[in-house]
């Protein structure tokens, strides 16, 4: 069945030429010399005032990276990236490390205002206290320009700060966990990131603490010819809970800019991490000129028993997306979840999915992925579910649907399902009618059509997580939620 008009209209609203965040901000920037070398890495490390071990870590990664080859297995094609034609560090010249908002360049503040990101705590507090308060870490090119609610979070024992600051203030904690989920040698882009990462967020939630507010990071690429190499590390200690949101935008340009991030999550015993992304990097124009290359390694480690990691992503931006938020289910009874909506338009190429690696006993995982391809885009779901010999009682349910609008685009599904344990039960399905027959029956009995019922169930499911995003971030997401599932092609 082809897509209905309503869906077509909704996808049109977020087509590549409708990109709203494509403006540029005029700020005087300080940059590292162009290109990549040991000197540039030393420069970045020095700018961040890092200890010697961190510099050594970076240099080791760089040496390793020089011996690696760019991966070619993903279903994306792009011109060769000249890694020496990129600025690896760009920070606002006036006071790159402001102590308070008053010291931040007003142009930058205006930028965030335009993007709708609240950076002033008092503004939020002045009016009626909103139900959901959000602490924001704003990363502008290579540096964090502001982090809100730091003090209040500190009272609860939660550490929330730019990772460059954490390396200075909590070196032991960072050293213990950094690279423990995504090893330096993991893959080409992760290794590159390890060598040159500039900023990102660091979160530590102490045992038994439920983080009192949402944490979020807003990434903005602004400067020309720069790459952004974000590094985020979130640790949820025993019995704690944290919900973290990430948003990203970039100006419209004819050039392709590289974003190679690494995100590591660690959940200890009974801890829960929710990680949500609204990815809206500039996708390039209708002819495929410009746009961000988004090569991202995101991985969560359910290290403790009964731990939970949930990835939710709404992917609408980037010229190329190469992203597989994964869960290593190491602790017994741990759970991994992945909910994704990926919409590709214009000439965008998306190759995204997840990996659920079941190592512990009675580990469960769920994958719900919805890909919508329009224009001349390519949208691929690529996922791995595996149970190792000792993963007794592992359970997975996967459902991935795709929808095509027009016959110039492509939707592909490449799931790998590997079971080495007889008691592991894996189900992979692509038919929308099989979500849960009970729920379907219930809805249909109340007069909803099968399609409406399906949409209600799946969307209700995703909405559950999406609704926790602050409105400012969720504008695009909300539009997508109502897209119905009719005409799915598995």
């Amino acid at each position: 069945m082809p897509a209905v008009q309503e869906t077509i209209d909704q996808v049109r609203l977020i087509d590549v030429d409708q990109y709203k965040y494509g403006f540029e901000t005029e700020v005087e920037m300080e940059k590292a010399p162009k290109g990549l070398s040991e000197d540039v890495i030393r420069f970045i490390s020095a700018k961040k005032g890092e200890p010697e071990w961190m510099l050594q870590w970076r240099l080791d990664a760089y040496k390793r990276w020089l011996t690696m080859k760019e991966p070619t297995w993903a279903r994306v094609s792009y011109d060769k990236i000249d890694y020496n034609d990129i600025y690896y560090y760009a920070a606002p010249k006036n006071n790159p490390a402001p102590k308070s908002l008053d010291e931040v360049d007003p142009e930058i503040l205006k930028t965030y205002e335009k993007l709708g990101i609240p950076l002033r705590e008092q503004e939020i507090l002045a009016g009626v206290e909103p139900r959901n308060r959000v602490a924001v870490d704003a990363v502008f090119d290579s540096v964090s320009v502001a982090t809100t609610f730091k003090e209040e979070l500190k009272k609860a024992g939660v550490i929330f700060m730019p990772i460059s600051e954490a390396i200075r203030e909590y070196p032991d904690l960072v050293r213990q966990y950094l690279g423990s989920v995504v090893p330096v040698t993991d893959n080409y882009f992760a290794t590159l990131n390890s060598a040159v990462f500039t900023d990102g967020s660091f979160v530590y939630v102490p045992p038994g603490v439920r983080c009192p507010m949402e944490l979020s990071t807003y990434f903005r690429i602004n400067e020309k010819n720069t790459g952004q190499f974000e590094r985020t590390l979130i640790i949820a200690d025993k019995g704690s809970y944290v919900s973290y949101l990430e948003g990203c935008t970039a100006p419209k340009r004819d050039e392709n800019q590289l974003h190679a991030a690494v995100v590591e999550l660690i959940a200890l015993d009974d801890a829960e991490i929710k990680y949500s992304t609204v990815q809206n990097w500039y996708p390039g124009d209708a002819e495929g000129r410009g746009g961000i290359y988004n090569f991202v390694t995101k991985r969560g480690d359910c290290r403790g028993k009964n731990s939970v990691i949930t990835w939710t992503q709404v992917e609408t931006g980037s010229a190329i997306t190469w992203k597989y938020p994964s869960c290593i289910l190491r602790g017994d009874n741990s759970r991994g979840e992945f909910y994704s909506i990926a919409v590709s338009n214009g000439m965008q190429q998306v190759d995204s999915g997840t990996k659920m690696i079941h190592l512990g006993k009675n580990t469960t995982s769920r994958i719900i992925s919805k890909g919508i391809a329009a224009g001349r885009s390519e949208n691929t779901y690529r996922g791995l579910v595996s149970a190792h010999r000792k993963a007794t009682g592992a359970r997975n349910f996967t459902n991935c649907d795709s929808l095509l609008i027009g016959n110039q685009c492509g939707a592909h599904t490449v799931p790998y399902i590997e079971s080495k344990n007889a008691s592991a039960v894996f189900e992979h399905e692509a038919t929308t009618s099989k979500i849960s027959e009970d729920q379907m029956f219930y809805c249909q009995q109340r007069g909803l059509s099968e399609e409406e019922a399906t949409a209600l169930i799946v969307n209700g499911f995703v909405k559950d997580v999406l609704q926790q995003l602050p409105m400012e971030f969720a504008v695009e997401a909300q539009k997508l939620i109502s897209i119905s599932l009719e005409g799915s092609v598995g």
Partner: protein
Amino acid sequence: MAEVTLMKTPAETGLAQAFEGAKALLPGNAESRAQAFEQFNLRGLPHRRVEEFKYTDLRSLMREAAPFAAKPSGEEARAALANAKALAGVSALQVPFVNGHFVRDAVRFESLPEGVEVVPLAEALASGHDWLAHLSPIPWASDNPVYQLNTSFMADGVMLRITGPVETPVHLRFVTSSASAVATATRVLVLVEDGASVTLLESHESSNGAGHQPNDVVEIIAGDETDVRHIRMNVEGDQALALSTLAVKMGTEARLTSVNLVAGAAVSRHQVFGLFNGENAKAQINGATMIKGRQHADSTLVVEHGAPHCESRELFKTVIDDEATGVFQGKIIVPHHAQKTDGRMMSAAILLAEGGAMNNKPELEIFADDVQCAHGATCGQLDEDLLFYLMARGLPKKEAESLLVQAFLGEAVEFVDNEPVREALVAAIEEWLRTRS
């Protein structure tokens, strides 16, 4: 990762030497063989880094290249056929191959069933027969290394032409009988003319105790409004490394049912390449695999919907006992113009014991927007509730398991409408269940 130039393995070196030695003696167009071998040799045996062979690493599974079998004497062939049991009880036109060579004496050419023509391939290659132009009907199959090896080494086989509705099944019997390990490369081409129908049986068996390396290709070109029922049975010997390919090109309103039963061989890989070339064609492609010990069985399937309004159904069932490994890789390709495609692919696996493994990779590659395509994959153990139910009614555990396994595999086999053939397949399942530890 730095570029690694892979060393040639003993098997690769052996194959290259075998080709050097054999190329002057093999019948037919030497150039196309040389080209196929060159393409193969460029990349060597596929290994786990080659996506299509990710789970069946031939580079490590094929340690040495067995020598290609010589043509058996009439007596040897007769003895081998007398010992061959697979589907032997089904009354059919017998087209036997022993050690990769067509046994001409076993076919009475003067009294073939109406609508069947048989041309020995070795002679056809040597004389440049007209039908040879129909070989390799699916262009992209030529990129496959297993297929390339067959093209390089194919020494014999047959070409069949089916010109009308044929009642009598045609039984292609592939028998390998030799005390020491041998390799074979047999090619069969079946031309099914417009409106014709036929039941094709394939049985593949070899002697135990030797690491035989059969590599068979069966190619079917089914014309418009044809009906082809294809049943294949692999009961190869316990040490065999069996590679096989079925390539089918289907015309408008063609019907295909293919059921492949796998029980034999230490390592087997069966590839099905399907191409819809005309509208409104329908294909049902099934597999029933039962393996134990340390067996490794791979079913790989690529179906291209090259025309609109076609329907494909794939149902693959795998039962894994002991420390065996099952592989299913299926891919449905729907190009831009193939609107109204209806494709459904299902792979289900049961692991009966700790230590087994199943790898599923059901892929979709879709470029048309008005299609219905779905795939499903499951993997788990036998339902405990069902087992309990049966055992509560007095069945010992093993019998209860057997009953459930029979029902599970039976779903894939029940599409066979020829009763004696279906019974033979069911008997093979029962035999397997009886002999499991």
